[in-house]
């Protein structure tokens, strides 16, 4: 949360100042500013990133809300593999079935973890889903027509990184990676159903939600509420479920949306001022170009289905190892998704995972360049 406040305030202030200046000057002075091509580019990029992400976010929050309201914790527990290796493979390859963009992924995974899916599987899915899926493979293959090894290397390296990440998380991550929710809960209890407060405190978070939904949707059914916290949502009426689904979806939309907008803002800003020729000037040092393309991928936060086409535009300027690093690192970690991850997971967990992926992709791309693509 602190990131939002630290970055959001100055950004918002700048935005407001522009608006205010426009109002005060009646458009005269600021027309210059507003018609400046950079501001135009900025606006186009900013809005296009948000518009493009909307369908995915809405789909994500909808799936997440449906999971919350209709799928019991017991079912999730039954469906997830117990064996860690099977679990990691499951998480890595789930994207083949559910090709979601990372914007849509985070709310779904957060819900799955809350509902009892082992966090290591959920986290692997977050990082694997946006890249290990048929849509991305096809677009990479199309973009690199003459270099099919790029599409295979991209999938292969991503898969290897995800599997190792999953196994490491399984071994070393013992605490819940989700952010503490104490504050939110205290807040809730301040004004909700005093009669059931103690009851809630005694239970796990995820049972709380079920319980609350139930209560709220049907004020007249209080008698049943105590029986509903086993995660069984069977006895609810359809209108109540619809209400809960929409309530979850809209809350989650605002929850994730602010990070999306902040990410889109920074991304659009970087894209507006970044001159590509500056990048190419730095491409001479060996190894540097891989780092550079990864940093570039992080900053521009492209959607994984179209970044291959952008990568091809760097062909000839950067080596194929650097392009591979761009293609693997970008969908897994970028500015927009990092902000959204930080909203959901503990900062330490997010930073550790990102550091690992960074190192793994860097080393992996160099190895593949040396031994496979050369």
């Amino acid at each position, binding site marked *: 949360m602190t990131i*939002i*406040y630290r970055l*959001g*305030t100055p950004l*918002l202030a700048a935005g407001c100042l522009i*608006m205010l200046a*426009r109002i005060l000057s009646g458009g005269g002075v600021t027309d210059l500013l507003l018609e400046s*091509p950079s501001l*135009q*580019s900025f606006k*186009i990029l900013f809005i*296009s990133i948000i*518009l*493009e992400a*909307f*369908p995915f976010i809405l789909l994500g929050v*909808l799936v997440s809300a449906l999971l919350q309201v209709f799928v019991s914790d017991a079912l999730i527990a039954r469906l997830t593999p117990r064996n860690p290796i099977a679990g990691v493979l499951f998480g890595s390859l789930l994207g083949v079935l559910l090709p979601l963009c990372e914007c849509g992924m985070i709310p779904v995974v957060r819900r799955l973890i809350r509902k009892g899916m082992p966090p290591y599987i959920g986290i692997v899915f977050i990082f694997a889903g946006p890249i290990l899926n048929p849509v991305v493979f096809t677009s990479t293959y199309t973009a690199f027509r*003459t*270099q*099919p090894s790029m599409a295979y290397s991209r999938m292969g390296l991503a898969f290897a990184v995800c599997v190792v990440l999953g196994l490491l998380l399984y071994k070393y991550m013992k605490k819940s990676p989700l*952010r503490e*929710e104490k504050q*939110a809960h205290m*807040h*809730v209890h301040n004004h*909700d159903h005093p009669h059931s407060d103690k009851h809630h405190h005694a239970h796990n*978070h995820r049972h709380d*939600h079920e319980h609350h939904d139930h*209560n*709220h*949707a049907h004020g007249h059914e209080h008698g049943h509420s105590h029986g509903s916290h086993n995660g069984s949502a069977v006895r609810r009426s359809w209108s*109540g479920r619809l*209400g*809960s689904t*929409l*309530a*979850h979806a*809209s*809350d*989650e*939309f605002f*929850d994730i*949306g*602010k990070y999306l*907008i902040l990410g889109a*803002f920074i*991304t659009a800003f970087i*894209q*507006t001022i*970044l001159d590509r*020729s500056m990048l190419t000037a730095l491409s001479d040092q060996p190894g540097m170009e891989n780092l550079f393309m990864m940093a570039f991928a992080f900053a521009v936060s*492209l*959607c994984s289905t*179209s970044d291959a*086409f*952008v990568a*091809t*535009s760097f*062909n*000839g300027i950067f080596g194929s190892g650097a392009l591979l690093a761009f293609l693997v690192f970008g969908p897994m970690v970028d500015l927009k998704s990092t902000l959204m991850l930080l909203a959901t997971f503990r900062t330490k967990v997010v930073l550790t995972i990102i550091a690992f992926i960074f190192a793994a992709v860097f080393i992996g791309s160099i190895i593949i360049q040396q031994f496979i693509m050369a």
Partner: protein
Amino acid sequence: MTATDRSRIIHHLIRAAILTGFAMYIVYLVRSDSLTLYIAPRMVIYVKISAIGLYATAIYQLYAALQAWAGRKTAACECNHEPSSSITKNTLIYGMFILPLALGFILPDASLGSSAAAKKGVNFAGAELLATGPKPAAAPSAVDEGKQEAAPSPGGPKTEAELDAMFPSDEYTESHAKYGKQLYKQDIISVPEKQFIETLTTLDLFRQNYIGKTVEISGFVHRQEGMGKDQFAISRFAMNCCSADALPYGLMVSYPRAAAYNNDAWLKIRGELTEDMFDGNRIIVLKAKQLQAIEAPESPYVYPDYDFGL
């Protein structure tokens, strides 16, 4: 009514307003035909659907506000996103949602132009991506062959076999070679809007066959560092998904009075295809013969033709 209830109602109302605002903005973009300035046509349907989703959620928020007003609790989701009670924080968060809306409604719609093109760096050689990198060994020598074979009978009609020799291909460039043969038979090769990128790529890939041919292209003028006074680029932005991934594709134009044409001017140029060095690369250059100012087209972008070669 308690203070908490009142704050709940306000939250629901603000949220309803923001959600409606986004839905209205999408509708506004659709109505004014400017949605495709931001996203590619294949994404349009999803964005339209999301407008419906936003509306539905907005209506739910209104309903929730009414419920709260009537003193009844609605199915709020208490999982970690109960609105904060601090007014500053709330202003900030809702302000972040209002900012893109304000920018969207207040600033006039426009498309990416020469300043963005200069930043992104134009992709002169559409085929650079095909011609470089570890590629099947057959291709470079095959291109040379094509050159030699083409030499004996310049200009004359070619047999199929001769054409095949001129457009050698492997499995990855097969569709370009096939398209290249069609282009070769035309007196004036006009770069169409539908296969803009594919045509440029083909011209570049089999450039030996096209040097000296007449090519016609439309696009906007822009310049980048390193260009001489008699040079500019004529390009279109190619979009895959949304304008964040748009890249300029185009041809370098050489024309003695090039300086007379301003950046962002839309031109239709007919000229002779030649080759020249730029920035250390050998690129194809259009030596302009006829320049004609044109209206900016309805859609400033071009898109990859997904049916190409199928």
